[in-house]
């Protein structure tokens, strides 16, 4: 598997950084120095490792994870379109302002996307406009309640090494 090539050079320090800080890092003046102290490395080492981990996409970023629902209005939406039209419809959705995710899924509702806007009024307006352009009803599934525990994921280091 291609990903393993990239993961091969990960060592103790890399793993320690990911395991220890995927659920949060201190918002102190010198966060990378604080991380360094915790993992027994220097600040420069930590910064260099984080850069490398980002470059090989083991980390998608080091930074804030925003709650989309609180930083603007957003909504999960779906449409059911004929398979033959799916790609064309997907293009229309992707071009539509405010769409930030779009997945084809195996169901009658076969296109699933997230629509965002600065506020609720604009969100509805965008969905109405898209609905008209697509010519099919858009299933609107706003989040009513979020159940968050955020345990992070146990990274299967041992399994990744095999092969």
């Amino acid at each position, binding site marked *: 598997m291609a990903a393993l090539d990239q993961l091969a050079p990960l060592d103790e320090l890399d793993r320690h950084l990911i395991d220890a800080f995927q659920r949060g890092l201190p918002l102190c003046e010198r966060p990378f120095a604080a991380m360094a102290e915790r993992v027994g490395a220097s600040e420069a080492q930590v910064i260099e490792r*984080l*850069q490398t981990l980002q470059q090989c996409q083991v980390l998608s970023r*080091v930074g804030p994870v925003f709650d989309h629902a609180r*930083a603007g209005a957003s909504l999960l939406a779906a449409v059911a379109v004929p398979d033959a039209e799916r790609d064309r419809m997907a293009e229309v959705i992707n071009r539509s302002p405010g769409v930030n995710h779009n997945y084809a899924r*195996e169901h009658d509702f076969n296109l699933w996307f997230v629509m965002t806007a600065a506020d609720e009024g604009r969100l509805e307006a965008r969905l109405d406009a898209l609905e008209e352009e697509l010519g099919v009803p858009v299933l609107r599934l706003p989040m009513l309640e979020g159940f968050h525990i955020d345990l992070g994921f146990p990274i299967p280091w041992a399994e990744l090494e095999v092969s």
Partner: protein
Amino acid sequence: MSVSTCPSEPMAATVSDGLDDLDRALIVATQAGLPLVPDPWGAVGKPLGLDGNEVRARMQRMQDSGVIRRVAAVPNHYRLGYVANGMTVWNVDDAHIQRLGREVAAITGVSHCYRRPRHLPEWPYNLFVMLHGRSQAEVESQAEALRELLGDACRDHRILYSSRILKKTGLRLARRPGPPR
């Protein structure tokens, strides 16, 4: 009904969740990640005319209010072996959904767990649970465990695998919204 200083609709209120122009500018400046330098706060603040302490205080405030869930090293789970994911949707008895939603969210492999509205008759599902596993078989066994946990409170469920990612970008907050009407 709402007055300009205090929008009363719950969804509109999220927009003005105590965020001002500078907070929005900070979201835009950090949503793709912090600069990996010894003083990331100072580096982020400089073009905005803020010093590092002010940036840090604002980030802390956004974290306290829930706009920021956490500031973290964010792993790319796909790269780390979680190659299978399934959006599972469940038709759960409304009387028990809060208790069950919390229990479901605590299960390993669950990244998101949300209550959403049903749209009958075509869409009877009110609980959305995103599952991540190292294989499709693992996702299926997670779903099976969920079904057992939900028991009689669940009438029906589906696993919707993604067959293609057609677009994926992070949060994009480009402009400040206008004042509420």
